[in-house]
């Protein structure tokens, strides 16, 4: 039994028939070939598959594709416009927040969720927010710095906008 | 995994013994049994449907009674297979008379898990065994009440 779904991924509409058991991450990777979202575990623990569903961070391995029907999805591929980097992407590069890169897309998507709610997080806020994302390479030190970098940059942009408006 | 405990029921050992040796009754007492078939002297083929929280699986296998000492006790050997792993148990069951119409049922043994049951189930295994034991004795009491 297949189920018809409609999703909007990174601004593009898709209609597909999917098996109900297809996980959202498998749909993104196998059907849409958006392979930036990774699978690192089978217990919903590691966070490598984190994306945004309707603007909120979700583990796409713990959601069925059919559950995403009608949803707006953003993956790492859609985080920036393709030319300019998102401040988090820039932060991870500037602060050496990644090594092998496998956890990075999920890490960035989770951090993006944090910065939506808390534009000025402290170190412990960042560490707590990332508890659902494992990184085996960096020891998290530079990931924390990357998120701090992005937060500062985004705040500066906001400030700038305000000043321009004023 | 260690399985041990005791439970006192208000019936003489002879009554309990009869129940444990009766396939039909046993099928009602052992938690999760959906089929129990006698395949020989003291051996049974069983299908168990275990539904406990995250685990919901069908187990097929054998139950065997050994070292039978009439109205006193026996050793129960259980071998169960499922897609999520196998479970083998060896449990010594003793019936101790406590006065006229009272018996203490003691059990002591070990269960071995394999596969996902072993690698994923540690967090819940203690609870599984405690719950299955509770259910067993609750079912036993229920059957006793009927008799």
């Amino acid at each position, binding site marked *: 039994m297949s189920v018809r779904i409609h999703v909007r991924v990174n601004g593009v509409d898709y209609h597909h028939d999917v098996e109900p*058991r297809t996980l959202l991450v498998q749909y993104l*990777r*196998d059907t849409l*070939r*958006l*392979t*930036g*979202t*990774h*699978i*690192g*575990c*089978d*217990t919903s*623990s*590691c966070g*490598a598959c984190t994306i945004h569903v309707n603007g909120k961070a979700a583990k796409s391995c713990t959601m069925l594709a059919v559950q995403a029907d009608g949803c707006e999805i953003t*993956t*790492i*591929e859609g*985080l*920036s416009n393709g030319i300019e*980097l998102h401040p988090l*992407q820039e932060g*991870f*590069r*500037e602060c*050496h927040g*990644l*090594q*092998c*890169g496998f*956890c*990075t*897309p999920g890490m*960035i998507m989770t951090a993006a969720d944090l910065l939506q709610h808390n534009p000025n997080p402290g170190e*412990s806020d960042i*560490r*707590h927010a*990332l*508890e659902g*994302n*494992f990184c*085996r*390479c*960096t*020891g*998290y*030190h*530079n990931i924390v710095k990357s998120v701090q970098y992005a937060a500062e940059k985004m705040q500066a942009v906001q400030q700038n906008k305000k000043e321009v408006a004023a | 995994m260690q399985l041990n405990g005791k439970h006192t029921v208000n019936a003489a050992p002879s009554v309990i013994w009869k129940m444990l040796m009766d396939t039909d009754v046993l099928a009602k007492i052992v938690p999760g049994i959906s089929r129990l078939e006698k395949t020989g002297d003291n051996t049974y083929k069983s299908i168990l449907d275990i539904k406990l929280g995250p685990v919901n699986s069908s187990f097929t296998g054998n139950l065997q009674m050994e070292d039978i000492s009439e109205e006193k006790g026996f050793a129960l050997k259980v071998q169960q297979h499922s897609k999520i*792993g*196998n479970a083998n148990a060896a449990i010594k069951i003793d019936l101790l008379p406590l006065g006229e119409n009272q018996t203490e049922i003691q059990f002591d043994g070990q269960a071995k898990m*394999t*596969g*996902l049951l*072993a*690698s*994923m189930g*540690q*967090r819940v295994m203690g609870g599984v065994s405690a719950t299955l034991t509770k259910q067993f004795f609750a079912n036993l009491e229920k059957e006793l009440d009927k008799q």
Partner: protein
Amino acid sequence: MSTTNGWIGKSVKRVEDKRFITGKGNYTDDIVLPHQTYASFVRSPYAHARILSVDTSAAAAMPGVVAIFTGKDVAEVNGVPCGWLLHFKNGDPMKEPKHPLLVTDKALHVGDAVAIVIAESAAEAKDAAEVVMVDYEELPAVTDAFKATQAGASLVHDDAPNNICFDWTLGNPIEEVDAAIAASAHVTTLEFVNQRMVPNAIEPRAYNSSYEASTDKYTLYTSTQNPHLIRLLMCAFVLGIPEHKVRVVGPDVGGGFGSKIFHYTEEALLTWATRKIGRPVKWTSTRSESFLLDAHGRDHITKADMGFDKDGKITALRVKTYANLGAYLSTFASCVPTYLHGTLLQGLYTTPKINVDVTAVFTNTCVVDAYRGAGRPEATYLLERLVDLAALELNTDPVELRMKNFIPPFDGITQPGYQTQVALQYDSGNYQGVLKKGIEMLGYADLRKAQKEAAANGRLLGIGISTYIEACGIAPSAVVGSLGARAGLYEVGQVRIQPTGKVSVYTGAHSHGQGHETTFAQVVADKFGIPMEDVEIIHGDSEAVAFGMGTYGSRSLAVGGSAIVKSIEKIIEKGKKIAAHKLEASEGDVNFENGKFTVKGTDKSVSFGDVALTAYVPHHYPKDLEPGLDFSSFYDPANFTYPFGCHIAVVEVEKETGKVHLKRFVAVDDVGNIINPMIVEGQIHGGLAQGIGQALFEGADYDENGQLTNGSYMDYCMPRADDFPMFETASQVTPCPHNPLGVKGAGEAGAIGSTPAVVNAVIDALWSAGHKVKDIRMPMTSERVWRAMQS
């Protein structure tokens, strides 16, 4: 050759990052080939079982199934080999049982593969694998390395009596060491377990193999740290197919930490199967499978005695270790507990007598092999725990005790290297320097005061120190060959100057997080005096790169980088000839500096780009010179490199619960010259997290039946962001005297020094409250620490 334009030593941002942060990395599981099929395995749920029958009929009838193979189908194929042959003390070769691609008679550990099911989709393969019926007869299992050697233990392999793969010793004669220990004023003794670690690279292993009949060529995409080595082992030892017909590609690889060095059965099986079915076959491990199958690390049971004279000088060290190898011999399994462990037992100390004795044991568990640090963390843990415990027992300061016993500084140039009692000769070192810097950064004296005050207020603060030395860039080939290595340990570096002066560099090292595309490019740009963006680093493809030994043992820059430098030197030498011709000067008068060839004492010069173009458009060209500017070099180092450092942990232990809070972590590492400080620091950070993880969180637990009882992230505790403070790191530079870059290697350092530092800190905290415990088993869970406080 001097630094020409300053790329070396700069924290250049990584060039590889752009693809990773935008989701454009290309990992093996991202690759889908035309007509792709997918594999799933039928694996033994028992640690030790006879296979009575395998019935694939129901599975074969399942939707989408393409093929099913069992052990019988590959019975004629060789098993995967071990790369390092050791011998028993009596001279007999180690026991080397076959590690088959699929088992036929017996499964020897949980997860041993019985059959492979190949289907049109991963889901169909999984569904069908579930209905393959295997009848097992369970056999008794052994899991503990010591118990496995005792009488009556069941045998993993019938031809390995007492489950012993080999026994091995190194150092001074045991009688001398026994006598020195006996004559010591104080002996500190520790019996402990260096527990089994699961490497847990976040990318699970994945393979995708294909075969093209028309050209008789195979391609294997594999999540490996060393594609050429996999090709060599798979072609020459397992499948017997010619290497030139096999292309092995290690694309982007999501972390390895050792676990992706080894040649795994699935790599060879998929390569065998793709030809059988004529379609590409892909398999990606689930995390549950990773826990059961990716070579684990450590797992030593050790008793060690360290003797001290009345002045606190170490007199002798005696070590007896049982090393668990698991059910089979993994690629480097035999050398890890021996040549990578025993040879490091000198540590940083002048210990005059050392003997180490290792018994390597088979058990019904996952194979054990190199995991970040490989042998060196085991040696360091042992030494640094002993020294710190001795300080507590002798009521002396652990800093003082170390300083008293350190080998004096030596640069390896004006002063000779340091000859240890355990075969190695250290290249250069300044051990006092790192410890001094470490305690300065920490504010050691103040912290000791704070600890006393805390203790008076019922709070348990602990300071744990560890120093370490490691051996990286294992070499030279002749030496490792004499010790049993079945391969050379050089590296290949090809530098191809394109006609426009742009540079393509082909390295046999493989990057899976280390940032070679940046660091190596820095070296090349620096040496040629050109912009970094003019340099491209190519790695990981056996068809692009001539040959290579891959990346492990912190060898990439020291060995791989040096090979590149050799090729750069050849290019500059040839470039000088071309430049001399162009400038009408004699070759001896041409200098190469800042990207220009100049004639000494004149203002005549020609640019690097001009020389490159001339080499490819040789219209006006020296007569006796070949066109082109492209050199390949094989660099075989003269010695290992010996990074060292000092790690210090500060912990607070919750009195009521035993929970350990890591408050601070200071690391001073000396990894020789540094090409990119940002990357080195990142490597240290990652190592620290793994080392601290071993001390506090991680460890694989097998029950007595050989079942891995914490085979998932729900039970195996992975360190997370909120488990750590910010790390306080610094470096000291003592260049390596024997390679052209003066580098030593930084990949493993963090994982080596940190583990004993944390354990020492917890023990120190407990002593501060009067709990004189010698050891707490790792990982130091809250319960274990709490129990230690109850005794």
